């Protein structure tokens, strides 16, 4: 049922105020046709509000919402043609699976046979054939979640919305469920918006991620983009782990260099857009290798403050002249006791230089 009629969702200058609280203020955002875009951010950042604005459940205070070439700002949720998977699933407890999934079709006054066929077809796509007569309280959490997805899909909406759909599912199952959602979205090609506060879920499931903070967009881009080129300390910290440190950028004839405490790192051919002077760096924990030996001029020297064995890796907190740095090392390597002096080796290309204006 792939559709070539996917539409782009555009929010223009959208605002939502609750009394004097400006949850969302003059936001512009595009969700590309046929893609799955995640709204990612800490709780209270306005991501769920944004989703509800798109659904029509919440009227905007100002601004416009466009589905493709149509302005739907004045449409109520009932008229907007969106499907939504709620955090709590919101399955009707007094209806069995078939009635739940077929609810929208009965509203449209379809014939009984048509409803039955449509329901069994959509249940098949979520691997729940044969569950028609079960009631929600007779299903596991994962099954309930899939019923909710089936119900959102059955009317073939223009836009699919997911409001933290996996937050009530235990972590093992979550991994396979998010793959299912991803697969389903790609198969149907319905433009989808997905809200979560779990960055791993966001990275794995989306075509694009929008990182939100305090009602504003911090950065929008592909998962890889966000991880490798975060444009603010907030994004660097929110997507994966990161050590954000101060450094100084110096420009010389043969190329730029970064002064990080005692250490000086030549950037060689790498292009830098920042102006020379104070900058902020994001150092990913996994870019470091811990060595007993090193050159103070090229590697960051530090002392192990404390370490923790967490199974697959050992986590180290290392006191250095630029502040405490967090890193991990494979268990197979030598373990360093607190107080040991170590050198942090890394490749200059892996340094992330955060843009000036932010963070």
């Amino acid at each position, binding site marked *: 049922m792939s559709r070539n009629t996917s539409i782009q969702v555009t929010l223009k200058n959208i605002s939502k105020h609750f009394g004097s609280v400006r949850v969302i203020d003059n936001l512009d955002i595009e969700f590309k046709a046929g893609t799955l875009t995640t709204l990612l951010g800490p709780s209270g950042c306005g991501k769920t509000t944004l989703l509800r604005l798109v659904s029509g459940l919440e009227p905007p205070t100002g601004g416009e919402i466009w589905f493709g070439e149509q302005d739907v700002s004045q449409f109520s949720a*009932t008229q907007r043609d969106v499907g939504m998977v709620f955090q709590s699933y919101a399955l009707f407890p007094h209806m069995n699976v078939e009635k739940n999934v077929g609810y929208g079709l009965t509203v449209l006054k379809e014939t009984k046979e048509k409803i039955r066929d449509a329901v069994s077809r959509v249940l098949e796509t979520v691997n729940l054939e044969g569950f028609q007569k079960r009631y929600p309280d007779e299903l596991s959490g994962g099954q309930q979640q899939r019923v909710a997805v089936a119900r959102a899909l059955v009317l073939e909406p223009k836009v699919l919305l997911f409001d933290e759909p996996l937050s009530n599912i235990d972590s093992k199952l979550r991994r396979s469920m998010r793959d299912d959602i991803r697969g389903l979205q790609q198969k149907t090609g319905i433009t989808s918006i997905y809200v979560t506060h779990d960055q791993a879920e966001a990275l794995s499931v989306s075509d694009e991620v929008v990182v939100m903070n305090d009602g504003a967009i911090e950065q929008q881009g592909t998962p890889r983009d966000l991880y490798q080129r975060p444009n603010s300390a907030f994004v660097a910290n929110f997507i994966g782990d990161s050590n954000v440190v101060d450094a100084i950028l110096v420009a010389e004839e043969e190329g730029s260099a970064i002064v990080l405490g005692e250490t000086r790192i030549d950037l060689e051919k790498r292009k830098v857009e920042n102006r020379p002077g104070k900058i902020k760096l994001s150092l990913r924990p996994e870019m470091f290798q811990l060595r007993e030996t090193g050159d103070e001029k090229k590697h960051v020297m530090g002392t192990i403050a404390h370490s923790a064995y967490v199974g697959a890796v050992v986590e180290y907190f290392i006191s250095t002249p630029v502040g405490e740095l967090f890193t991990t090392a494979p268990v197979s390597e030598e373990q360093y006791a607190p107080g040991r002096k170590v050198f942090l080796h890394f490749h200059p290309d892996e340094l992330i230089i955060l843009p000036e204006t932010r963070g």
Partner: protein
Amino acid sequence: MQVSFGERSFRVGIFTWAVIGVISYWILPWFALEYGLFDATMDEYWDTLGWKSHPVSMLTPVFLLLFIPIGWANWSREIQGRLLVSLALVATLLLAVDFIIPGRSMGLGTGVILIVLAALFSYGIARLGFLQGDIFISGAVTVVIFIILVFVFYPVLQIFYKVAVTKEGDFAPFQFFNIITSFGIGRVVLNTLLLAISVGVATTLLGLLFALYSVRATSPLRHLMRVFYILPIITPPFVVGMSLILLFGRAGILNDVLMYFFGSGGLFIPEGVEGIFERSGYIYGFRGIFLAQVLSLTPVSYMVIVGMLTAINPAMEEASLTMRGSRWITLKKVTLPLLAPGLANAFLLGVISSAADFGNPLVLGGEYDVLSTEIYFSIAGAQLDFAKAAALGILLLVLSLTIFLIQKKYLGKKSFVTVTGVQTAGNVTPLPARLQRYLSVFVCCWLLLIGILYVSIFLGGFVKQWGADYTLTFMHHKELWTNGFSSGGWPSFMNSLIFSFIAAPLTAILGILIAYILTRKRFVGHGVIDFGTVLIFAVPGTVTGIAYIMAFNTAPIELTGTAIILVITMIIRAMPVGIRGGMSALSQISPSLEEASLLQRAGSFKTLRSVLLPLLRSTIISSTAYSFIRSMTTVSAVIFLASAGTNVATTYILSRVESGDNGVAVAYGSVLILTMLAFTLLVQAVTGRSRIEKQM
């Protein structure tokens, strides 16, 4: 051009309503009939038709038909909405003026046309984007606001109006102060306050003890506390007072016993010596009312405190125990402070209920006047002093409203939440052993007293003359039930049943609708409904009674003497039950269920019908049942409004008490209690935990 489904239903809706209006203009009475609709002759009916006698007879139908082209025209939503809204408002205004100026009363047809206008108004505001253009909810909001304006605000304003004008209709701004500073009123207010506060303190203390006992004691006796839930529900408020008279009255059992031993010629008194005891009416006055109110109101405070007590997380008390606090210390330093809001709530509830109580002071008051009875006596009988009744009503209203607002502000919405006995996880800390022993004795005494009270009510109906002649007899019951359906107790009993039967489902539905609008919707006018609800909760029954008499005795809305006004009174009086039930049920239904339905293209009407109503089914049943019981047992407001033809059970009983026929009154009361008990048990059997309740 293709007309969409929504557009078509909009047009059809407007067309239908306009046509209903025109038809009712043609066939239903425009003016009120002198003797009611069913007793009118054909000629009288003919005369009240608007198009016959109305000076501008064609204006109304033309005006109504005007709505149709507006609804069908292809104008913008904005223009259509504005036109509909302003036309409907203008029409309502014209109607009101047309009746108020000549002082004539509206007939049924006018009522229907008002409803039609309300519907057209709702279509208009929905067009303007009110409540996201939802016609059904717009209509519901309009109707609820209309009801609140007419049956809550208007009567209350009438009290203020009546106190500001003299009997002759002159403006008298200081009349209120003259009345409340006149002789005797200060004493009445003091009496009311003294009684209310003592009853508040007593019921709170007793409620706390009983609550601790029922939740924390290990003795099997605590299961008997269940009667606390049932008895006050099914007992008309003044029946406790009546039974106190049987026990402690002048001819009561206690007097008899004391006379037998200590009176002149008594067992312990030597021949020829004066008795040291004389029969006396010690129960009449403060003591009696106090005792009756404490007996009937303690269960209420008990339920509030039990709800609070079971909501306390047992872990907190366990924490205290692990820190070497004894059970006593734990109770004193942890449990009681945590209960404080519940205790305050119970106290305020006790105060309000005592001040609003009418039946017990009427039966037991004697010389002790309180506001509620004083209001009644100002307009009962020959006095007919409306200004005084209104002034006293204002005092009572202000008192009750103040306490209610304090409660609402400082104690949150707790009073809205129905108290359920849900036990949280963990082990509750039992009572200190000694406390439990004392309490057991006390609870036994209390239950015994209640037992004697109820037994005496039932026996009282079967003895010839309580206090004088204890011969068993059926004469009272015979007088009530075997003299045909048109005399004795039957007419009032049937009236009670029929009125309550009509009022109860309407109360439940309206209550749930108001709860739904209040909790789930935000809109302009929300405050009106919110304040209206506060008034519905806070206005004492006596005040409702005089307000209705003043508001609906004259044009333009003349309803006194009809059954309609009694049904409406019952609905408004039982509304708190409906609203509370609706609120607590809705708080258990996640709003996302409705949102899920809306996103499946269902409108709000379909959502209400297919999603909410099935989930609210058991609430609707229990709300209906309790509204029914409340309507059956209500006294304070209906006593002002019941007339010879519309007497109900409670007013009939009171009239027999007043004429001294205690035997008949008690016999009737016991039948009423049994009816209510049977009904309650039946409802509880039917609404046993259903599948849906378990899922929520």
